[in-house]
């Protein structure tokens, strides 16, 4: 009984810390200020966007995702 209680407590604590794929709003710093990108970007899509940047008129702008 005591073993079951212990593992139940461990499972409860562990489950509250599970990682889930997060989605974020992103923007880039354009020539006239901050420009929000439409929709949300999740997981690998958000990571790729951060790494490659956003291309506008042949200019690559650094993208920032998530709340700052």
């Amino acid at each position, binding site marked *: 009984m*005591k073993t079951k*209680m*212990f593992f139940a*407590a*461990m499972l409860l*604590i*562990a489950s*509250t*810390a599970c990682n889930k794929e*997060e989605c*974020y709003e992103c923007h880039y710093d354009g020539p006239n200020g901050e420009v929000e990108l439409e929709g949300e970007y999740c997981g690998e899509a*958000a*990571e790729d966007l*951060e*790494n490659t940047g956003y291309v506008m008129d042949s200019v690559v702008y*650094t993208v*920032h*995702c*998530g*709340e*700052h």
Partner: protein
Amino acid sequence: MTGYMCIAQQLTGVVKDGLNNESIPGAKIELKELGVATYTDINGRFTLEGNWPDEFMLQVSAMTYESQNISITCCDFIDLVLQPDPHNMEEVMVRVERRELQGSMTQKTDYIELDQLSVISPLSITEALSQIDGVQMASYGPLNSKPVIRGMQGMRVVTFLNGMRINNQQWGGDHGLGISMAGMESAEVIKGPMSLIYTGDATGGLLYLKDGSFAPQNSYSVDLNTQFETASLGTQNSVVYKLSGKKLRMSAAAVFSSYADYKLPNGGYLSDSRMNDMGGKFKLGYNSGKWNFELNYLYSNSEVGIPGHTHDLNPAPESFMLDEQDRDFSLPYQKIQNHFGNFKASYFINAKNKMEFFVNHGYNNLAEFEEKIYTPGIDMYLNSSSVQARYHWNPNKNLKLLSGIQTILESNDNGLDAEERLIDDSDQFDMGAYSSLSYDLKGLQLNAVVRFDHRAVRSADFSGDYSNFNAAIGLRKQWSGNALNDLSMHVSSGTRAPHLSELLSDGVHHGAVRYELGDRNLESERFVQLDVNYEFSNEHFSLMFNPYTTMASGYIQLAQLDSSINGMDVYEYAAKDGVLLYGLETRVHYHPHFAHRIHFETGYSNTFGRDIGLAQEGEDLYFMPQARLRSNVRIELSKNKTFGFASVLVQHNYFFKQDRVGPLETSTDPYHLLQFGCQMKWDGNWPVELSFGMRNVLNTSYINHMSSLKSLGLMEPGSSFYFNLKWSIESRNQSTSNQ
């Protein structure tokens, strides 16, 4: 005393009150070297079965009694007598003891029981340690902090956990201690360079943390703890499970914490002061005859917000404040992961000789995310492996000899995806050897230690070697009559080779909100400290008076320059020719005869630090803590009742103005802090402790001088209610005796 080795021995005894000769039930009997414990039964008797060495140390302790450490020979019946200690307070009181931490009975250490502090419910180990005179918190918000001992912090304060040296990027101004209190039993603090049998470079002091002992023999326990406080809507939750047989023992713990941005006295919330943390511990012990083994493992994973992050040269404090409280993920933040494992083997050769072996490994990953979620600004990996051997020789009861060797290999690497590198990839190798002698000459106790260390630092374009010799000598005399007097004096040296960060830094450290520059020409800094301690105590009154002074040459200071890079203030590591540190710690405890349940305690501590070199003579040092006056009034209630209020505590802290600051450093105004706490207990089959109280009762707006946010004018938390619930689902079994 014979030299034979027993098999399946039974260790039995009784514990009695020294005044009235009555038996003491519930006293704890602990064989600390073997990790075995039990409790006395209703008749004050105990029994431990096992395969014991010929001679070992036994500690007996009980509430309101003075603890005893004695050397016993297996397996005669043991008669133990404890004397009442009128000053014993269950919590908060910091005990000044002469512990065996240094292998010396002359050295004073400050000992605090972490698992007994629920009436004040500290948020972190550092906050708990700040109850000790001379110890304060260097913080980046209350959840990201590390200890400051007599004005020294960072790499000058070395932390040991269960005998393993913890290396987790302590050089960083924004890098906290990173260790949870869950399952932890005690902390001992040595102030100044007086810990040469552990390390030669703890020039500021040493912090020795110890996890809780195993469950008593042939028993188990489950302890649940939950804590909540209102300023950050924060919660800490832990579960500790212990199971002990006759020879094999295990302990496992899990912890989870979550804190939102904390509430300021003005009603706003400090942006990015949030934190989430989870972790676990596992401990295994086994003893058989002359061998005792212990295995420890700790895992922690934290996401800590970085408040005060900006690239503006003169930001307003309001730009860091929010109208609504939030705990969701947000940039910028630190992600910190730790794995610490250590293995200890003890071999009791015979009654006078013992050997110990330690093998340790630590892994630390610290990444700071400033502008991007998936690409860290800095990403550092620190691997640290160490091996140590120690030999104890006690030829007679007056003489003790301890010698040892240590090696540590550290590897610091940068992640490939990081945008910047603050410190180059580098390796560091340390080797040390020491020997300590303790002798009791007819009541005058002497301790002398010598130590040699060598450090080698290597990176792609840097190579440095540092050799150092240190020594310490201490004397202690006790005399008693109507009162107990205790006088001790120590002269000790410590030498700290420059750290990688001090040598090789050249970049923006976003977490600390500054640009940091190292100096490859730095040499070892050397400290020599004189520490004098006097203690007086009788039945109702005790006094501790502890002045000290330290001379340091080659003192490495991180000082602000009058320039900025990329919008960040520039700080540079530079050596000073000569530095003088001096101060005083004193504490008074009064326990009225007419009101036995009331305790009054006041402690004062202060440290001065000045440059006495030719170049900047008279300059004050950076980051010297404010002087502090701390007062406690504690009332013990319903001491012998099964259910009810156990104690009430009111604590007042006064922090003096700090205007002895370095050039370009901001000074700090004085302030009062008031805290109230109350504890209730239910001593049923499943004991419950409920504590509740309030921090910063007066909602004082104050800046901690040791806060990295002080230059931004950012306040510490306002008033905060808290409660702490501890529930032992299975109580510890008491031993039974055949006699």
